[in-house]
């Protein structure tokens, strides 16, 4: 099962390398989003807290622009039936989740680098706490957006519905991440923000379990 899932991931990875559709659109979206924020700020000095919040705004909308591809592309090409024949639902989900995880991590690392280069107020004092937050929330983001992408691909209208459906599901994750990020910028220790980290871990585990349990119903027509 594992090797099959990995093969699926490789297939997605190769076809992505061939067209570079998701990567290109994601990269452009990140640049557009960050430059819109920079233009709207102009010469103003913005408070530190705000940069942490805006950081997650950029991440959320970038994720919404690119992550639906994993399942929507299968429906567009009409290859989802073939996939149903050759692999079990959980294998398909694992493959797609791996692909989205890699995509989310690449995307968010680029956003974080660009962001810390362009925003002077975005200073992280407790780097390790930020790293843990970053990794945990990226996993949560990838899991939730993959399962919503699966729902969207089977529903009629694809583009507009995706952020609408994802936002309420991602809201606990985003709220906690924003809190943790502003805690990192003040330099809070691990002990003080352990509850928030626990919330993130719970969210990841719960969403992962629910996704694996429910994906069968979405995938089988």
């Amino acid at each position: 099962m594992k090797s099959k899932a990995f093969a699926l991931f490789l297939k997605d990875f190769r076809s992505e390398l061939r067209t570079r559709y998701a990567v290109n659109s994601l990269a452009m979206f990140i640049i557009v989003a960050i430059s819109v924020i920079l233009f709207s700020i102009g010469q103003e000095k913005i408070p530190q807290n705000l940069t942490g919040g805006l950081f997650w705004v950029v991440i959320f909308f970038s994720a919404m622009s690119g992550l639906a591809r994993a399942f929507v592309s299968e429906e567009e090409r009409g290859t989802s039936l073939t996939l149903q024949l050759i692999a079990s639902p959980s294998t398909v989900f694992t493959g797609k989740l791996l692909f989205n995880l890699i995509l989310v991590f690449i995307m968010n690392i680029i956003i974080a680098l660009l962001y810390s280069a362009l925003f002077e107020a975005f200073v992280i004092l407790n780097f390790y706490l930020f790293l843990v937050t970053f990794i945990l929330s990226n996993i949560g983001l990838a899991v939730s957006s993959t399962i919503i992408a699966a729902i969207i691909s089977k529903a009629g209208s694809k583009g507009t519905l995706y952020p609408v459906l994802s936002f309420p599901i991602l809201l606990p994750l985003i709220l906690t991440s924003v809190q943790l990020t502003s805690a990192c910028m003040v330099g809070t220790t691990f002990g003080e923000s352990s509850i928030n980290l626990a919330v993130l871990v719970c969210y990841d585990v719960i969403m992962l379990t629910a996704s694996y349990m429910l994906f069968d119903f979405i995938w089988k027509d």
Partner: protein
Amino acid sequence: MKKFDIVWKTFLFLLLCFVSVAGIAFPIVENPVHWYQYPIIRGLEENAKIIFFHVPTAWLTVVAFLMSTIYSIKYLRKKNLDDDAKSYAAAQLGIIFCILATVTGSIWSKFAWGAYWSWDPRQTSIFALLLIYGAWFALRSSIESEEKRATLSAVYSIIAFVTVPFFIFIMPRIMIGLHPGAEDVVNGKLVQSASPVIDFKMNGNMLLVFFLSLAAFTILYFWMWNLSYKSLIYKDRIQKQITRG
């Protein structure tokens, strides 16, 4: 059976009348002596009367959401479209009560906290519920095929349901709450309350009216839900008969 129907409907009518009158008209005094007088609750004063109407709507929002999810699970197990109709009817009522709870809450908060909206944890939670309901209806309206719509919306409502504990139980502990019951007094110090259930520190008669109101609104909800899902099922059957010819 018919006779019993009339009895409980009359009973419900009288109960709702009593709750409305008692909730609005009974005075709030400093030292209650008569059975119809409410005590002053610290921090609420005259605004306390909203308890009788706002709390039941918020309660029913959650009940409707829970029922919608339960029937979604039932649908996924048995694939019976009647369960989907039940889930849909519950969610329809849920969004009505959700809007009512949000509106009454924010009007109250204008007087109590000075602003219609201030991102209190409970306001955030009810806003998230409103978003979930909205997204759920948007998803349902986008799918043509009945079975597909039922399956996908059932899956979405379960996924949305597993995120709700985060709002109800965890968020109030992270954020600073303004909502009554959000703080506890421990050893003379104000601390954030860990309990999701609000302790209003009401006296006996106030509690009685409060629970009567809760019961009356809950019965009303189940009656409305019953009518609503039956009409949905009948509508579906008639449509199928017409298309069959």
